[in-house]
């Protein structure tokens, strides 16, 4: 008889369903990083001088920095000279101007992944920017969004067409000196998405970026910048996958959000980078800096993330609560199985008066997975009446995984109100047996119990994304009953 314990141990061995490689003609830099690489990259992207200068400042600063070691993750050191800093599908002429010019192989890839790039996107009501390795290949619904004054384009395009906006906001939340990985990104970022929602405009659809690493030995360093001007609203979705490869691949992204007075940005991520095989070989190193600034009264930034992939995740989507009465939220589900390691959490920095933050973190560990919540809540002197609520729940599946919680709290204003709740539970054999006794198979029971555990986070996701996230968790918990 198969016992739940066996099932649970089988967790590590299920398949990664997005591991295929697309055969396209690639234009790739040889591995190596130097000032020349940065110049070449900038030239490749036909960037203006100011952009190159910014990159070079970052690169020079990066040379003075040390890779951080404080995270609760262990990996063989990354050789930054063995990475290729640019890989893109070979462009015909100056790059695709419309979907018709995009390599059909790439469109097929996105179709396989279920990302609507064509007209059927209309039905889905989602505008998509698709980034394939280092290059943004297609942005849908650009015209429709332009009608209401919204700019949604690749970062490269924004640098060329909206230099004043990029110059004003780039690095305003995550400066190029911020941290080792963000600084590296600042020097070599390849592409990403850019969004500007003008004053008083409510973005009529969900905006979405889909990141795909395809090329071998390449890193992906995308950079996303989203600005919601006064009273604007935007909901943004990000999804990511990569082929299965034996080597580890580096993904060091930066996301900057700026919400002005009365503006709201909702940023949702479903991250499913290749996690490595059952022995921990291969997989993506996901070292990401995400930060938002509530730069005006009543601004609101909400991060929701579902992290199921990557060999290593190092990621702390944060909010700087500068405007009075501004609101920061962080909802997270992180699943580690096999030999995955995740060190993730958030930083809420309360500067303005009556600022409010909410943190809900759900960590699930299975197999040999190690899951760390690391969160910092800082209430600065001037933040009268600031409030924070934090809830960190961990679920353990099997007895070889680990859950760790490191909450840092720094309160400098006596009027602050803080609440912190934390629980650790084991998925109970009794829960599984109860489901079995009602006719529900163990695999479905585990998925049901885990989804129930994550419910508070899933309900923050836009509908279609919530469905995707639940399916993704189910897929990741699959392969248990032979």
């Amino acid at each position, binding site marked *: 008889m198969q016992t739940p314990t066996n099932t649970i141990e089988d967790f590590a061995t299920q398949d990664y369903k997005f591991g295929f490689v697309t055969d396209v003609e690639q234009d790739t830099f040889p591995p190596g990083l130097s000032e020349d690489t940065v110049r070449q990259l900038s030239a490749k992207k036909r960037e203006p001088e100011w952009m190159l200068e910014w990159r070079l400042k970052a690169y020079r600063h990066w040379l003075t920095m040390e890779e951080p070691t404080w995270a609760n993750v262990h990996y063989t050191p990354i050789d930054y000279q063995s990475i290729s800093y640019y890989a893109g599908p070979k462009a015909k002429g100056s790059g695709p101007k419309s979907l018709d010019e995009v390599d059909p192989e790439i469109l097929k890839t996105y179709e396989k992944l279920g990302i609507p790039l064509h007209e059927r996107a209309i039905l889905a009501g989602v505008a998509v920017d698709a980034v394939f390795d280092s290059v943004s290949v297609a942005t849908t619904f650009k015209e429709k969004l332009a009608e209401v004054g919204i700019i949604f384009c690749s970062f490269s395009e924004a640098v060329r067409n909206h230099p004043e906006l990029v110059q004003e906001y780039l690095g305003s939340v995550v400066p190029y000196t911020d941290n080792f990985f963000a600084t590296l990104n600042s020097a070599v970022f390849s592409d990403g998405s850019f969004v500007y929602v003008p004053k008083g405009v409510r973005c009529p659809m969900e905006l979405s970026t889909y990141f795909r690493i395809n090329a071998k030995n390449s890193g992906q360093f995308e950079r996303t910048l989203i600005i919601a001007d006064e009273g604007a609203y935007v909901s943004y979705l990000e999804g990511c996958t990569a082929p299965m490869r034996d080597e580890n691949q580096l993904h060091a992204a930066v996301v900057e959000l700026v919400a002005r007075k009365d503006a709201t940005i909702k940023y949702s991520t479903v991250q499913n980078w290749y996690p490595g095989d059952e022995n921990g070989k291969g997989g993506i190193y996901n070292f990401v800096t995400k930060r938002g600034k509530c730069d005006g009264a009543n601004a609101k930034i909400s991060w929701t993330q579902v992290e199921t992939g990557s060999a290593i995740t190092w990621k702390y989507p944060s909010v700087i609560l500068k405007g009075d009465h501004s609101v920061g939220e962080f909802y997270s589900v992180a699943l580690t199985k096999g030999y995955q390691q995740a060190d993730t959490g958030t930083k809420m920095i309360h500067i303005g008066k009556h600022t409010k933050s909410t943190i809900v973190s759900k960590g699930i560990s299975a197999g040999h997975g190690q899951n760390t919540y690391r969160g910092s809540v800082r209430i600065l002197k001037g933040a009268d009446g600031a409030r924070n609520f934090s809830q960190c729940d961990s679920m353990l599946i099997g007895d070889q995984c680990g859950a760790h919680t490191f909450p840092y709290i720094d309160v400098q204003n006596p009027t602050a109100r803080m609440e912190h709740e934390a629980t650790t539970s084991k998925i*109970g054999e009794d*829960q599984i047996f109860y489901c079995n006794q009602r*006719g529900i198979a*163990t695999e479905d029971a585990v998925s*049901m119990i885990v989804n129930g*555990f*994550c419910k508070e986070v899933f309900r923050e996701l836009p509908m279609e994304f919530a469905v995707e996230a639940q399916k993704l968790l189910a897929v990741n918990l699959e392969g248990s009953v032979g």
Partner: protein
Amino acid sequence: MSSGSIMERETAMLEIRNLHASVEGNEILKGIDLALQPGEVHAIMGPNGSGKSTLARVLAGQDAYEVTAGQVLFNGADLLEMEPEERAREGVFMAFQYPVEIPGVGNTYFLKAALNAVRKHRGLPEMDALEFLKMVRGKMKLVQMEESLLNRPVNEGFSGGEKKRNEIFHMAVLEPSLCILDETDSGLDIDALRVVADGVNALRSRDRSFLLITHYQRLLNYIVPDHIHVLVDGRIVRSGGKELALELEEKGYSWLEGLTPEQMATQPVGA
């Protein structure tokens, strides 16, 4: 073997033969023989630690228990060979002594998943949400379930009585053929007990059998069994009709506990 016993085997819904089971190396069941015909209600009574609940859990397939000898046939098929979920889909239901909480999973959602798993197994189409809700509302009345318990997470924050009622509600929805009630009466006040018993009685039918596990005679005032078996130290020491419960109530379990196996063999055995 006489032809009579073959006949019996063919018509019995559940037949337990010489069942031995242990937990962590300790033998708890030391040779149980029992046959339930369709439509019959059997009660298993016995003092604490006699193995009553072990019997229920072995039948349901909880893996903490190891069957070391014996056989269990359910409608002629080898029950012990089946996974717990297969047993459930075949029609074995156990109302838990301690119903388990599943945070974040709505009671209706859970029950719909369960029912559809059972239906799929029986070659029936899945029930859609609308049909399901209609059916569920009918069953709720059976156990006087409040609407609010439908949408709350499974058993989470339920009172003791609500949990037990919820078990009977699950039973009503899943329509099993063999219902095992593991100390469903424990922790219930008299009103809650009556509600639960009314629910069970409403579900009694010609082709549904019940195995009631209970410590107290009280439950049997409300659910009147066809047969009563007294379990002491892993063996059935006495079987009889419903009047046996009253005798037990009067004399206590000690009446039967002091008996040696030889003495027990000489006791008149009913059924």
